[in-house]
């Protein structure tokens, strides 16, 4: 409906149509939360205009005010209860006052649109982007519905000109959009949700499972989260492309990486580059001593971990990745480089990433340590989780994972598919989604962030 309405309307009304649709989708979850996003939009819109006009210290002050507002909203809604719980733990120890917890649900996609809004004011401050005069277009930049709830976190230089451009219907882009959307749905309902049937019960009760079952759940989760998140990104890219708008690529076959640095260049690219451009480089990046570079990396990964959720497990997941990356740069510094053996490099990288996911997925840090300990000692080499997933379904899962990797490899080597091929593939994917998909109303994992 939105797409057909979009092409029926003249260009000058399209932004309003898209903004209305985006507002509706946002309000569908909890109508009153539109006020929160509206507040940050107003603040950043005004801040952008003022930053552009201001000179010297005033510019910095305005940027800071805008960032503090955005981060303040994020911290309040996402981290207040986490902070209060931890302060209360300490308070109980020292018998001091207790902070009451707030009872509300997290506004959907808060972390994503806050970061996208911040990138706008930062880019205006840096002079890379002119302040947007049109309030509606700016609001649409923050709220553009395909990517509002789970990214990709866009940059103003990339999106704002596209929202202003006169877009004519192009069947090639439209078909590519449908193709990407069907590929995204396939990843979500055929792979991620199928793997979730095994992963979720195993991780919710790790004590009842053998090391083999836990190891399998760990590998499966790696692909579950990849297919869930990259599936969403594909749907977002596709939905935007049907409107003639191109979003940035968020994943580039991360599990084929041969080292951790490469993994982070291929995984959640829009967030990695956001942290690189707005946190890591301003902190000094790799311009200082090796120790400072490592410290910067740790800071970035800790923030990145916490960005995912208000829980110690995410922080530890970030720290683990910080350690892995530091280790990699240390090896590089000591010039320990082995040419060739790509398969072993890939194998090591893949396994390290998978083991780090345990911290991300387990319910608590204690659970993750228990799981890793059990896997490390290989306690229980039997498979007895037939009630959760039969062996033949496990093999099927492995088969679709291999199929996914082959499919992505094929896509990379043949960058330009013909429109006809895309139509047939999309049709086949949609049929596969229906017959092999799991429709248990499971949300996208990254919606909670």
């Amino acid at each position: 409906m939105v797409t057909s309405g979009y092409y029926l309307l003249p260009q000058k009304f399209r932004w309003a149509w898209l903004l209305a649709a985006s507002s509706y989708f946002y309000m569908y979850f909890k109508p009153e939360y539109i006020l929160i996003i509206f507040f940050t939009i107003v603040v950043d819109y005004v801040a952008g205009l003022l930053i552009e006009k201001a000179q010297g210290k005033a510019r910095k002050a305005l940027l800071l005010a805008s960032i503090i507002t955005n981060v303040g909203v994020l911290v309040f809604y996402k981290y207040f209860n986490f902070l209060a719980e931890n302060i209360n733990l300490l308070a109980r120890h020292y018998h001091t006052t207790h902070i009451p917890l707030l009872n509300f649900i997290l506004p959907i996609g808060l972390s994503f649109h806050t970061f996208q809004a911040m990138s706008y004011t930062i880019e205006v401050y840096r002079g890379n982007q002119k302040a947007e005069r049109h309030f509606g277009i700016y609001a649409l930049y923050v709220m553009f519905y395909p990517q509002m709830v789970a990214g990709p976190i866009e940059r103003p230089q990339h999106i704002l000109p596209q929202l202003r451009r006169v877009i004519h219907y192009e069947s090639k882009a439209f078909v590519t959009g449908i193709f990407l959307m069907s590929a995204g749905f396939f990843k979500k309902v055929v792979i991620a949700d199928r793997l979730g049937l095994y992963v979720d019960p195993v991780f919710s009760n790790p004590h009842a499972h053998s090391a083999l079952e836990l190891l399998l759940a760990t590998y499966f989760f790696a692909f579950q989260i990849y297919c869930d998140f990259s599936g969403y990104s594909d749907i977002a890219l596709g939905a935007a492309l049907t409107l003639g708008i191109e979003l940035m690529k968020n994943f580039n076959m991360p599990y084929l990486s041969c080292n951790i640095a490469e993994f982070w260049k291929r995984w959640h690219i829009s967030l990695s580059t956001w942290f690189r451009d707005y946190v890591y480089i301003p902190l000094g990046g790799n311009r200082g001593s090796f120790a400072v570079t490592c410290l910067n990396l740790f800071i970035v990964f800790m923030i990145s971990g916490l960005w995912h959720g208000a829980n110690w497990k995410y922080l530890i997941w970030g720290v683990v990745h910080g350690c892995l990356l530091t280790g990699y740069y240390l090896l590089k510094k000591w010039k320990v480089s082995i040419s060739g053996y790509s398969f072993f490099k890939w194998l090591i990288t893949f396994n390290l990433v998978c083991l780090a996911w345990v911290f991300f997925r387990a319910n608590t840090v204690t659970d993750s340590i228990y799981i890793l300990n059990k896997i490390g000692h290989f306690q229980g080499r039997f498979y007895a989780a037939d009630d959760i997933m039969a062996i033949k379904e496990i093999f099927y899962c492995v088969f679709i994972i291999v199929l996914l990797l082959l499919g992505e490899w094929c896509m990379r080597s043949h960058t330009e598919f013909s429109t006809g091929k895309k139509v047939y593939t999309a049709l086949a994917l949609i049929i596969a989604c229906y017959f092999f998909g799991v429709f248990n109303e499971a949300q996208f994992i990254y919606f909670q962030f």
Partner: protein
Amino acid sequence: MRKVICLLVFVFSIGLLLLSMNQSLLNRIKQDRYFAHLNPPAATSHSWYYRLFIRSDRWRYGDLYGLSYLHPYKLPLEAFRKYPPNDIRKQTNRILYISGDSFLADKSLKGAFAGFDDVIFLDRRFPSRPFKPDSTKENYMVMEFAERNLNVFDLDKPGETGQLPDKLPTGFFERVNKALFNKDLSRNLELLLFDDKCFTIVKECKAMVNYILFGRTANEVAVSTDRKRLFLNITVDTSSIQSAFRPKSSGDIEKIDHNLDVAKRYYLSMGFKKVFLAVIPNAVSIYDSKRLPYNQLLQRVESSTDLPVISVYGTFKRDHRNLFYRSDAHWNPEGFEIWINATARALDQLK
């Protein structure tokens, strides 16, 4: 041409969206689809509304078939015997109330029991206004439960005694808000677009592919170990409180007894002369009780309660006929008749 296609898609989508936002229409469609197979075709088939919307196989072959679409269980449902009202000249001055669930809902029971002028069914599944029994008559109450529902019965819960659980939207903005952001929108769209006879074959193919390849059925349904029938999964899955295989402590039984006792006292205080308890066993408790260790809930409650009990468990267990539909969570006409006879025998003792 492109603009025309766009316009058609747009108009169709708008129409569909508006229809799926209209919850009262959707509720009517749902209800009519549910009862369509019970209504005589002549009365319904001519209306455009029936031709357009009431074309579903979901309930025609049993609720469990409708949830799972497993083709081997696409079995016709036999009709129940109807008990029209008794001869008005033989007044007994007694009224029987039955507070029950889906096992007795939609049944014609007015003249089922000879010693009563009327039988009034109170559907426990839906909240209703508080009722008052006719004080000029002798009123009796039968509390009928499906075994699975015993676990969750609590008279103090909203809805059980006529309090409405949710405040309905009254103001204009409240109603607009509820319609615009209707939380059932995706389910309504699914209902409008795909709950149609012509999709039955596709749904059956999908169900069979998943059943044969992965041994999976719809979450709400479980297949019996002999594969002859379907069960409601909540009566099988031990993670559900309603499971026949979830161990029940003596504390759990005491809690159920207490809740039944509260209900009994409530009805007696309303003026009922006597309150009976009738528990219909789960199909799985009769036909697949060795699947896992059965918790014996029904016998334990029947033996511990001080309510007079209309028990059919033993009769059901001994009877070698099929007493439950194979594709539905409820009894079939034979099972229903056994219960009617058992209840009639228990009520006869009042004479």
